[in-house]
């Protein structure tokens, strides 16, 4: 069985890419903070799950992909398309249920998708998008277009049967797919250690004769990037799927505004993770390595903040969809509702 040992080899990442990593992490951060404050003000309908704290794994993984590569995700959904390079205004408009939303207001927070950047959709049903990504890899394989697919899933999703089926399918068909586990150690209020039969999801890879690797420091965007890159390159060479697991942590509650009964997480544990914030870490590295100056990085951050602010402006200014639009988009070749609605 092949091993992903190259993961620990240093990767050559050029200056622009390193800066782009910070830019995208900052985009996720600013976007999520904006979103969280909208929820608090009661201005965002539905359930909202943020990726605050998980920016390094989201962005590191996405940036290891080419723009034409495919990606699916889950309910913790905003970071993935942002990481993949989606334009922010239609994402923000989607969250506000506007007709200019990336899904025309049909999807909302849990169902962002931007096909123009290979984002094939986030699934509110845990695990359910894993076979879909496997299928995108199948089409890449059959069409020979050199693309790869990556699916994000959580530690909670690791126990779903569709993951097992997808891993086996991808392994025997040697599909170019990366099973990317965002192990933030909890599924809602349930600690992974109480429901997961292994310490690390990647330990399951041997059951599929594929490489499995865990990035223990998932707050280090370069470490994530390096690990995913190895898996992506491997997939692109036609050598099949991998599991890449990233240990990370979510700063917020499972969903914004959620009041939960039990104290399932330790405050000190959370503090210790916050102390190793992925944006702070990467910024420090860029400065130390002389990749950029404080001023340049401040500029980058403030540019992103402007970007998010104007995305919000766009979203707020956009119109709500007309009620009749609810009837569009079900089929490519539509079927009229017989007799209209009573």
């Amino acid at each position, binding site marked *: 069985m092949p091993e992903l040992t190259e993961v620990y080899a240093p990767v050559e990442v050029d200056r622009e890419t390193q800066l782009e990593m910070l830019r995208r992490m900052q985009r996720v951060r600013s976007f999520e903070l904006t979103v969280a404050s909208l929820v608090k003000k009661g201005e965002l309908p539905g359930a909202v799950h943020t990726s605050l704290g998980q920016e390094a794994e989201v962005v590191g993984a996405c940036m290891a992909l080419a723009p034409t590569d495919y990606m699916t995700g889950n309910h913790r959904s905003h970071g993935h398309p942002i990481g993949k390079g989606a334009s922010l205004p239609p994402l923000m408009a989607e969250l506000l*249920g*506007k007709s200019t939303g990336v899904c025309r*207001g049909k999807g909302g927070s849990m169902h962002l998708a931007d096909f123009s950047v290979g984002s094939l959709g986030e699934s509110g*049903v845990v*695990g359910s998008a894993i076979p879909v990504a496997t299928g995108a890899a199948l089409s890449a394989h059959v069409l020979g277009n050199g693309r790869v697919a990556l699916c994000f899933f959580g530690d909670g999703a690791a126990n779903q049967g569709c993951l097992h089926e997808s891993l086996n399918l991808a392994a025997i068909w040697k599909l170019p797919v990366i099973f990317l586990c965002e192990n933030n150690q909890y599924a*809602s209020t349930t600690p992974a250690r109480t429901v997961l039969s292994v310490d690390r999801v990647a330990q399951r890879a041997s059951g599929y004769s594929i490489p499995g690797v865990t990035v223990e420091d998932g707050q280090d965007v370069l470490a994530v990037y390096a690990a995913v890159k190895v898996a992506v390159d491997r997939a692109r060479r036609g050598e099949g799927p991998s599991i890449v697991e990233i240990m990370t942590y979510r700063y917020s509650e499972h969903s914004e505004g959620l009041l939960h009964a039990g104290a399932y997480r330790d405050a000190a544990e959370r503090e210790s993770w916050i102390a190793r914030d992925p944006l702070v870490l990467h910024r420090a590295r860029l400065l130390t390595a002389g990749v950029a100056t404080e001023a340049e990085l401040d500029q980058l951050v403030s540019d992103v903040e402007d970007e998010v602010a104007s995305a919000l402006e766009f979203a707020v200014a956009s119109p*709500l*969809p007309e*009620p009749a639009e*609810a009837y569009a988009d079900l089929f490519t070749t539509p079927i009229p509702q017989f007799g209209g609605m009573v």
Partner: protein
Amino acid sequence: MTRISYLAAIGEAQREAMAADPRVILIGEDVQSNLYGTAPNFVEMFGVERVRNAPISEEGFVGAAAGAAMTGLRPIVDLTYASFMYMAMDQFVNQVAKNRYMFGGQASLPVVYRASMFYRSSTAAHHSDRPYPMFMNVPGLKIMVPSGAYEAKGLLRTAIDLDDPVLSFEDATLWTKKQDLPDEEFRIPFGVANLVTEGTDVTVVAIAGAVEEARKAVAALAGEGVSAELIDPRTLVPLDVETILKSVAKTGRLVVADPAHRTCGAAAEISALVNEYGFDSLKAPILRVNTPDIQIPFSPSLERPLYPSARRIQEAVKRAIGAVASASP
């Protein structure tokens, strides 16, 4: 009398049943932390052996509950959202519904599967399903659709007592609605409809959260001089067809308010039954007030108008009694 919410009523039924019978256990994601509010202090009361946090693997724990039911336990399974039931569909249809029959009566499956229909809350297509009709098409499953705290508690106690598998479709639009409930334990039988309001001009059958909307519609109609009879079937399998037929025999008109999608929904079945067995009493077409055959959109402005509302039910009743012209097909 104690005034409690629909959610609290479910919790009460579970608590009473677990206190009464050690074979009753609770399985579900995040039940130990009482994330959804129907298991308050259950870990303290019943311990982690009987209040079991499940991994996210619906097919596994739905089937495990069935196997446990076949061998001496009486599990309650909390699936949280009804939209996740599909993950376990094979277990529901091929094991839960079929095992007693296939094995010639050797198995009993005293197990209750609870799932909430979380519509009208801007959670879009992956969390908003109301899939009871597809389970009605599967022989071997009993189905309850409580329309208030009283029903939620009384039906759930009966469900847990039954030696057959029961699916409980709980309507999240009612979660916080409060009602006065008897202090003593009580049960509501399956297959006995509730005649909510008597009337003479038209029969309205409403399901789950639509009962509340229908109640409003009926009240408004009364103000307009229309006397509507409102029936809540409470359980869809068994369905109290007699009560509906008796009412239609009196009123000659029927409107069915059913939050499920229209095609092959519960309203279709009720319409077909009344057509077949109550044809001679029908003075007008049976009208269905459903959710249209589209998936649930996220945007509140798109989602809000889709479900059976008091207004839509009221309009349908007026059409049924000929007060407004019928839409042409």
